[in-house]
């Protein structure tokens, strides 16, 4: 049987069972309205019904700061950092965040495959959970429905008083061993509809973004944007980074660190001598959105945005990626209508 019933009364037992198997990362409350993925000590602290976490689980595979190598300044000797597999269960992951991990897998595997990322990525078990879309989610518009189980080992479909546990992989089945959950024979619950939509047929992605390059929307968005880079920081598919050396206070050694960087920041494209190659916010906004809908998508055939809504929900200036893309679609449609 591939569907089991997990009553709410059994939930803490289920989580405790997972914690006994491996390290578990799950959403937990942080402040009044915010949630973060954090290691689970207390099963009761886990929140499975949450809108979105501040950061996605990307932070476990591509940490915000990461040592690449350590060096000794006297001898010039260095050693590459030892990276450990994450080897953990990720409980309560929304479909869009899991799709984002799969997209990062692609980015760190194609071309020069990166050992650090691929090593960390080992031993990750994913337990998805359905969610109630809020006014920022738009996964449905980028091909990622609420109850999409792609990449999961188990998936929890929310019921009124519990969850249907859908077994998606053999690893997932193995994880449930010893729990003795009853079979679920009913219909899977209907997921709630998205409130937000990008009206972009996937087949039109290429032509809409070919035309959209010259759109006036970029200047309009630039008037609001302050260039803080929050949208990059919270995006689960942004993976650009900077590398800097840090010297210990002893001045004897130090380490080469990489940290998340963002194309919305002015310094991002700056070269020695001062030239900034993407020198205005309009060009930087366009680059950010094109990274999500064109540049990588031209190669892979799918949007690189997963519809989590974070860039919009956390934007310090109230800029909506949904509104930007819908505007491009609209301008494209008008231009085509004008030809008739």
């Amino acid at each position, binding site marked *: 049987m591939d569907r089991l019933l997990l009553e709410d009364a059994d939930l803490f037992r289920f989580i405790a069972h997972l914690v006994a198997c491996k390290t578990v990362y799950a959403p937990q409350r942080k402040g009044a309205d915010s949630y973060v993925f954090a290691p689970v000590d207390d099963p009761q602290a886990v929140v499975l019904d949450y809108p979105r976490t501040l950061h996605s689980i990307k932070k476990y595979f591509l940490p915000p700061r990461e040592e690449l190598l350590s060096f000794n300044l006297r001898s010039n000797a260095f050693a590459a950092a030892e990276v450990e597999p994450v080897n953990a269960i990720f409980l309560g992951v929304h479909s869009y965040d899991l*799709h984002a991990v799969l997209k990062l897998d692609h980015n760190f595997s194609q071309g020069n495959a990166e050992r650090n990322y*691929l090593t960390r*990525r080992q031993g990750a078990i994913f337990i998805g959970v359905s969610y109630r879309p809020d006014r920022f989610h738009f996964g449905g518009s980028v091909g990622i429905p609420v109850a999409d189980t792609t990449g999961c080992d188990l998936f929890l479909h929310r019921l009124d008083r519990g969850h249907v546990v859908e077994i998606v992989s053999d690893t997932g089945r193995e994880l449930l061993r010893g729990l003795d959950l009853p079979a679920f024979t009913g219909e899977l619950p209907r997921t709630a509809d998205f409130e937000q939509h990008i009206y972009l047929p996937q087949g039109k992605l290429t032509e809409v973004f070919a035309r959209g*390059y010259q759109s006036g929307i970029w200047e309009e968005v630039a008037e609001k944007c302050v260039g803080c880079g929050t949208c990059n920081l919270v995006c689960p598919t942004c993976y650009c*980074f900077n590398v800097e050396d840090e010297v210990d206070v002893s001045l004897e050694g130090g380490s080469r660190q990489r940290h998340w960087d963002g194309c919305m920041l002015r310094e991002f*494209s700056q070269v020695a001598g001062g030239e900034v190659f993407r020198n205005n916010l309009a060009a930087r906004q366009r680059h950010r959105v094109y990274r999500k809908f064109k540049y990588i998508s*031209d190669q892979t055939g799918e949007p690189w945005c997963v519809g989590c809504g974070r860039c919009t929900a956390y934007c310090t200036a109230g800029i909506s990626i949904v509104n930007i893309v819908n505007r491009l679609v609209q301008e494209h449609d008008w231009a085509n209508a004008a030809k008739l």
Partner: protein
Amino acid sequence: MSRSQLLDPAAARDLYSPVMAEISAIEDLTALEKLYRITLPDGAELGHKPGQFVELSLFGVGEAPLSISSSPTLRGHFELGVRRVGMLTEMLHRLPVGARVGIRGPFGNGFDLDALAGKDILIIAGGIGLVPLRSLINYVRDRRGDFGRLIICYGSRSDRELLFDAERAEWEADPSIELHVTVDRGSAAWRGRTGVITTLLPEVELDPRSSVACICGPPIMYRFVLLSLRAQRLAAENIFLSLERRMKCGVGKCGHCQINGSYVCQEGPVYRYSELEALPEAL
């Protein structure tokens, strides 16, 4: 996308560890630029093509992309022409012969030598753009029979900033090279030509069917040089431009060097002008 695409990390190389190399010679070029001769462990060859770059690191300071200035025909070591312009290059300029530096690379595509073979080569170098183009110039000199004419147009802001004086004297004396040099503003001692680099181009007689142009210089230079070359009916696919960007990682991951959808460290830094129509951020 499915999880089965996840690669075995054992199949992935360590992308970020440099090889420790030695500065085996230093030559002053100008007040701002020095030429560094770098020797890899056991005299290993870098194995580069003209137009490629390396990432040079100084522990505690960082890492920066630097164009390779020597031809691959120079054996046993390679050369980097470095302007003192940022923190890493300031530090590099203080290092003595014998100091050790980290090297990763070579990176980037370099010039398409197959496409250049048999052609008349027009080199257009603005300022420090001569550093990467010197690799190509010396490659063509060492393989002289493989190429047609070698025409070098070199412009600099002033005569004090002209690079590779001794070598340029050799080029000048070489009857198989057509060398044209100009400076924007000459000092009192300057006996050569004055004017921007584009003033050299109309005087160069080109056969557009058999010529290629290889260009490197400051961003502002490209627009005017390109207008001039197009006026001489050189096809866009026969114009090669080496573009500067912030190649931080060199391996197509960090995102800093991207021009539209193209990673300069992977698909560049050398582009055919015909490829740049799809990359409006390039020029």
